[in-house]
């Protein structure tokens, strides 16, 4: 190009020296080996250090080799790739460990006896006892919270999607968002302040349910709203054009069309509140005995049971074992809810498609 004033930089040829395809794996294996060797040699007893050394070596060596053989741009690309892999592995290790530890330690005392008996008068130092009272409490509290939240949540979502246009709808939308972010302990404090401190009621499962509802309602509203928006307008118009009143259209056409998605949303919301501890701690208080009446007197709950076994046991192994076993039951319950909910979503998905 004769009139080019600036020489544009370009590669001389299409070929470039490249590291062989297996090099990332080789560097990774080398780094891990070196990490272990340094860890052993220097007598570092924490595996976390070994891992960090290996990760640093992996990124550093990748960059050095890449820069030497392939040039700076390719080296940057390789470092980005290696960092992304390291990030992934860094995150997977604790999360996998969490699941593994819970299962491995929880399975120890988990048996039919554990599931069907309460703590009774078993002290925290002795083995034995169970979580029947806690399961019962959690089911009742979560059930009541669901009974409160689902109608309010559904109706609010219907209002927002089917009726809401004005300022009120905007305000509701905004505050549903705000409510999603309320820390669970603040929800607990609110019910505490007005139900227990001002109105003078005592601790009860129902007080806990009210706090859990505050956490659950916005989740139900959000997911239901999304699902209702997926219902094609043609369906509504077709029904209205037949002379069906709007409320019947909503009940007979809109809701049935989106019922799968709504169910999924509700189940995910239930899964979310089932693990909440803080409001239960403030409002339900905990009880080693079976209390089947959620409207009167302290109850137990699974998450609270885990906390009590951990925090109020003075470090007894028997209590820790019970805490892990209860954690395993709680996780299993929540995961099953999640899996079933997602299963429903997938199963219903093609029908709700636009």
């Amino acid at each position, binding site marked *: 190009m004769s009139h080019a004033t600036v020489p544009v930089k370009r590669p001389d040829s299409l070929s470039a020296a490249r590291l062989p395809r297996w090099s990332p794996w080789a560097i990774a294996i080398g780094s891990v080996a070196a990490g272990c060797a340094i860890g052993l040699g220097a007598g570092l*007893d*924490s595996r*976390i*250090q070994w891992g960090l050394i290996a990760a640093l070596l992996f990124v550093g060596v990748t960059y050095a080799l890449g820069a030497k053989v392939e040039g700076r*741009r*390719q080296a*940057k*690309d390789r*470092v*980005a*790739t290696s*960092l*992304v892999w*390291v*990030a992934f592995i860094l*995150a997977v290790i*604790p999360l996998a460990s969490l699941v593994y*530890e819970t299962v491995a330690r929880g399975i120890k005392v988990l048996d039919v006896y554990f599931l069907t008996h309460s703590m009774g008068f078993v002290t925290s130092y002795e083995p034995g006892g169970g979580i029947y009272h806690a399961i019962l409490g959690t089911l009742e509290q979560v059930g009541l919270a669901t009974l409160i939240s689902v109608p*309010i949540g559904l*109706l*609010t979502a219907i*209002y927002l999607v089917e*009726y809401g246009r004005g300022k*009120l*709808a905007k305000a*509701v939308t*905004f*505050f549903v*968002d*705000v*409510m*999603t*972010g*309320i*820390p669970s*302990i*603040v929800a607990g*404090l*609110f019910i505490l*302040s007005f139900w227990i401190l*001002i109105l003078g009621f005592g601790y009860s499962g129902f007080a806990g349910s009210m706090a859990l509802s505050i956490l659950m*309602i916005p989740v139900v509203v959000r997911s239901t709203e999304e699902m209702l928006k997926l219902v094609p307008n043609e369906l509504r118009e077709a029904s209205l054009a037949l002379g*069906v009143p*709007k*409320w019947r259209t909503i009940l007979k056409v809109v809701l049935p069309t989106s019922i799968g998605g709504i169910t999924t949303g509700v189940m995910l919301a239930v899964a*979310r509140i*089932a693990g909440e*501890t*803080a409001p239960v701690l403030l409002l339900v208080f905990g009880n080693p005995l079976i209390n089947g009446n959620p409207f009167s007197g302290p109850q137990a709950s699974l*998450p609270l049971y*885990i*906390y009590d076994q*951990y925090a109020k046991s003075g470090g007894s192994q028997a209590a*820790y074992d019970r805490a*892990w076993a209860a*954690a395993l039951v*709680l*996780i299993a319950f929540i*995961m099953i809810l*999640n899996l079933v909910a997602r299963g429903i979503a997938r199963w219903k998905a093609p029908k709700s498609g636009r």
Partner: protein
Amino acid sequence: MDIATQPPAPPAPADRPTPAEQKRAARGATRPGDRVFLGLSRGSGILLLAIMAAIAIFLTYRASLVLSKNEGNFLTTFEWNATATPPVFGIAVLAFGTIVTSIIAMLIAVPVSVGIALFITHYAPKKLGGPIAYVIDLLAAVPSIVYGLWGALFLVPHLEGLFGWLDDYFGWTGIFAWQGGAPRTLLTVGILLAIMILPIITNVSREVFRQAPQMHQEAALALGATRWEVIRMSVIPFGRSGVISASMLGLGRALGETMAVATVLSPDFLIHASLLDPGGGTFAQNIAAKFSEANDQGRDALIASGLVLFVITLLVNGAARLIIARRKEYSGANA
């Protein structure tokens, strides 16, 4: 359905409908059934607003009862003796602990989450990306008490080596000086919170990166960009606001987290120079820890601190929503 059996519509009234009637007709709420249904659904919306207002009012009311009696300075006193007469309490330590742990959590969680999100959308083999995303979705549902249990019984003992190391190499900074106590410190809490909020931030970021338009990525590729350069030029600019709002959601969680902090931290009411010294506290942790031995006045003091936490999380979440709203407009304009 009873359409066929319904009587024919009444003849239109001779006089024009009033504006209110027109409005109702436009909403489709002219029949009794419709009016009841509209009333119910609008009532639920109003109930939500009422709950929000009630939260603010009741917390403020109970807090005001005790704040007037407080002998200490609510903002600066390093003490929590709210059950005494007269009560002395202040949130300085709690505010410090809450902010420090949240900052540590964000510093760790945001880069790692963005890394995992990019891993899922742009680096992992196609067959691996989907299942990984699914599993991380599930992990977001693990209750915080389980993270707390794992943190206290597994993470804490495994952090001793790391703490010794930090002390060896960075002890001179003062922030990382270690006396050799159990690692139940603000740094541990920060690390645990980071692990807890990883799944949430990852999920939202992943969703945003996945939506980065193919055509802009191809444009970058066709200019001779490497994979990283494609991500830097066309994926990250597109996803930036999404990642920010995801981080804010994570921050909201970290600020309000109770049980994971309460199980791991060994609290006291001092601000320590070193992050490796046990002690300090957070708003939520302090409420859970002090609650059972507090009388009504003590509870009101805890409510006062909860009110502060409430306001902080409101601000953080509000900021996140604003960013999301801006992003919606932005992407709409370029669709």
